């Protein structure tokens, strides 16, 4: 069985070639905004981002960046393009955008949505629905908007000015906010006669450990997320000199670094698992260590020790990881003598969970055995029509960009629901494919490949950074660095499009391709074909681009894996069988009702 010719009219084919965009939950057109940065069109680059991910300034500093491990550059060089920090560049250097924001209709459509929580999920729903004429009311127990971005992400990573600006940009489109109000009953909220309810209340409860000494020492044992919130609102201004942080995720990193800035001198992070299994992002670990905070792995807390009725130490047993044949890990005590770390305060950062005590269980909103709402993964609707979930509230803690992606989808569903349309009829993405050819060897993009290594983002001097909670650690790229980093992008959205009937099988493209990805060979089934290429195509995640049979009966097979999008194949092709075409893909958000054509 031979392989079918690739259908490049299916937008998902080329979309997948754009590794970063494919990996981004909100499918931000990454290479497009990076090219705009390279052209110093920062405002345009910002707007591309704003449309897709709503919070370019915030995400440009804090995003979990699933796009970066996916970056093609990791497969041909070493480190990915600094996609995330370039987003910040767009935000830092942009001009005024007020005239580019959507126009909000003064005539409303008569439908009113309630949103619980003012985190990124709810804010995205609001951003998408206000321009369609909906009215939106956000109810938030905190005194201001932003959710965990406001209460938990420390200011030294995300300046309040940036946060407020991006949150207010959404609220100022005309949302009604009811801050300082906690919803304690969904039934009551439903009685307020909203047309739909979106629950974006997050995963608000930090997990605890019940160990000997826990309750006796509770005055000095704090739940990490509560601690961070308390610091953010100025309720906590200092901590003991010796601090032990328990946990190895990003919350633990934020906790220890915050402690370091409000009085903690000897701060330790302790993790049960080996370091390589730590949940925290690599860059957060780097930043933590740069601030002189040791991370002790394989330390499992077993007891809190009190002296004179006050916390004085934590006792740990040493662990080691063992893996069974299937690679499944179990942590086992090594039997070494326990480790005692003396301390004044403990910060517990071992994860968060959802809790919905305020949702009555007789409203038709079903919950599963784990106490999680039953939510449709495509429509984000609960089992009660008109009640939607998104962000951390839907399936547990994730991150900002996922909350945004959920928000977009939920907004589409709310709109469809209120227009009595089928929630499964999702709008198709907006796509476009146009040639970039400008002359014989001239393209509308810069096809020269930069050999530069990833540029490091400059940091504030350590002493200055540690002196205050509000000094931002990262300074961002200056323009020179930004432009050099932008040039590292391989333009994966500029697609190599092959037109078989033009090909004379001269081999010029095969010969010039710097990464040996073009082949002319007999067709066969995929596994065999993959093994027979110039360089066998072993990365099964990446597609083969297969043509129809050519004149000699062979097919053109291109392994998309490490194509540099350098355009040399198209430059060396005598017949124009290869062309470099820009592929634009944008997710369609909630839309204005389609005006149906009147049948003639």
């Amino acid at each position, binding site marked *: 069985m031979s392989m079918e010719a690739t259908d490049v009219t299916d937008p998902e084919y080329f979309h997948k070639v754009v590794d970063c965009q494919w990996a981004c939950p909100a499918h931000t057109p990454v290479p497009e905004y990076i090219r705009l940065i390279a052209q110093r069109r920062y405002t345009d680059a910002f707007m591309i981002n704003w449309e897709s991910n709503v919070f370019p300034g915030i995400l440009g500093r804090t995003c979990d960046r699933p796009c970066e491990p996916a970056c093609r550059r990791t497969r041909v*060089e070493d480190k990915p393009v600094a996609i995330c920090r370039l987003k910040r560049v767009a935000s830092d250097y942009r001009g005024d955008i007020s005239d580019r924001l959507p126009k909000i209709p003064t005539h409303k459509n008569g439908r009113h949505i309630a949103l619980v929580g003012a985190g990124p999920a709810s804010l995205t729903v609001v951003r998408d629905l206000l321009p369609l004429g909906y009215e939106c009311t956000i109810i938030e127990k905190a005194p201001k908007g932003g959710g965990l971005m406001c209460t938990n992400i420390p200011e030294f990573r995300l300046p309040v000015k940036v946060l407020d600006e991006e949150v207010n940009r959404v609220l100022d489109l005309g949302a009604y906010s009811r801050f300082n109000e906690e919803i304690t009953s969904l039934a009551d909220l439903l009685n307020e006669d909203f047309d739909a309810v979106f629950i974006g209340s997050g995963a608000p409860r930090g997990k605890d450990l019940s160990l000997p000494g826990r309750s006796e020492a509770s005055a000095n044992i704090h739940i990490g997320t509560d601690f961070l919130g308390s610091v953010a609102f100025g309720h906590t201004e200092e901590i003991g000199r010796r601090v032990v942080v328990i946990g190895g995720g990003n919350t633990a990193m934020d906790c220890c670094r915050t402690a370091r800035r409000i009085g903690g001198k000897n701060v330790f992070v302790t993790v049960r698992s080996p370091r390589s299994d730590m949940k925290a992002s690599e860059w957060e670990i780097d930043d933590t260590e740069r601030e002189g905070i040791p991370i002790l792995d394989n330390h499992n807390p077993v007891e809190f020790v009190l002296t004179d009725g006050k916390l004085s130490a934590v006792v740990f047993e040493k662990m080691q990881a063992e893996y069974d044949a299937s690679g499944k890990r179990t942590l086992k005590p090594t039997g070494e003598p326990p480790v005692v770390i003396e301390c004044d305060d403990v910060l517990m950062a071992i994860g968060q969970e959802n809790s919905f005590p305020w949702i009555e269980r007789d409203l038709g909103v079903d919950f599963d055995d784990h106490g999680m709402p039953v939510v449709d993964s495509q429509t984000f609707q609960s089992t009660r029509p008109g009640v939607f979930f998104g962000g951390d509230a839907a399936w547990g803690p994730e991150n900002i960009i996922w909350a945004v992606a959920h928000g977009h989808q939920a907004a589409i569903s709310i709109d469809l629901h209120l227009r009595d349309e089928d929630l499964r009829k999702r709008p198709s993405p907006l796509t476009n494919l146009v040639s970039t050819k400008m002359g014989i060897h001239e393209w509308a993009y810069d096809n020269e490949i930069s050999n530069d290594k990833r540029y490091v983002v400059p940091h504030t001097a350590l002493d200055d950074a540690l002196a205050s909670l509000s000094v931002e650690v990262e300074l961002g790229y200056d323009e020179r660095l930004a432009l050099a980093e932008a040039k590292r992008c391989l333009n994966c959205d500029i697609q190599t499009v092959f037109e078989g009937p033009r090909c004379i099988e*001269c081999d010029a493209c095969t010969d010039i391709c710097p990464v040996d990805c073009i082949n002319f060979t007999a067709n066969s089934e995929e596994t065999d074909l993959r093994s027979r290429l110039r360089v066998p195509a072993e990365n099964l995640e990446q597609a083969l681009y297969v043509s129809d049979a050519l004149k000699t009966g062979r097919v053109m097979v291109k392994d998309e894996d490490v194509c540099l999008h350098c355009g040399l194949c198209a430059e060396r092709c005598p017949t124009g069988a290869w062309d470099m075409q820009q592929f634009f893909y944008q997710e369609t958000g909630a839309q204005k009702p389609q005006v149906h054509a009147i049948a003639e």
Partner: protein
Amino acid sequence: MTHIAKPKFHHPSLPKNKLGLTHRDYEGVVSTLCAGCGHDSVSAAIIDACFRSDIEAHRIAKVSGIGCSSKTTNYFLRQAHGFNSVHGRMPSVATGANLANNSLTYIGVSGDGDTASIGLGQFCHAIRRRLNMVYIVENNGTYGLTKGQFSATNDRNSKGRTGKENPYPAIDLCSLAVQLGAGFVGRGFSGDKEQLVPLIQAALKYRGFALIDVISPCVTFNNHAASTKSFDYVRDHNDVMDRLDIVPHREEITAEYEEGSTVDVTLHDGSQVTLSKIAKDYDPTDAESVLPMLHAERNGGAIATGLLYIDPEEQDLHELMHTSVTPLNSHTHDLLCPGNETLAGINAAHR
């Protein structure tokens, strides 16, 4: 021509040869030839053959004449020695270089104009003298560089791009070479590297004169419907005579061949070349049977390709002339310049 440098990045799992090099380490500068030119494929085949043969590029000397084809020595083996000489004079330069330094491997690249017109005499004498070199003719039936005049290898029935008739018969370089005593004569097609690469590999191992006539379409001036050197025509009329298998010396021969279908040849360095013949009634080691075969193929409108003739016994120029096998640059000054007394003795002997 392409304006950007060829990116340095290569495929992360590119195979390495015994020297730890990838085929990309054998590249030259980016070609300035027309996009799609057959000559670029020949360069790629040379790169691949040197890579597969574990040859150190700096042990190779590239020599050429003038023409699009002759320009290509710049497009492969950037670390090799090279001399881009004058039109039709590559064999003289190669002869001089070879006599002075017998330890390098010589790859000559020429065109059909460079070889069969202006350089025909030089070509014949290089063969006659059994110069130890690989002589590659990138044969497109036209003078590409000077904008498409008929060359001496253009077939009589092959018209020019504008319909112009060619009144002269073609010179068949392979027949000529066999006749003049070349020990290794092959023909390939730039569009079939599977055949061409092993042919070049075998030629590199061969000691003596090795000709490879590569039909290499000129996409700009001679790739039209009335041409007999176009991609389509060559594909339709290609008569593959044999397939080559090379086993370097000391390696065990494992391939199995059908009785009587193969001819084994042991080269000077002990490597074994196995030719799997494809049903043709001739013996590739017997010049007397090769010439009529080539004649018949040509008359039948076919282009015979493969390793057409091989004589493993032939001696090379150094053996024939008993000249210094040590490169001249390795001799001591005393030996190279033995002084007035010795010179006087030599002169006296001629009086």
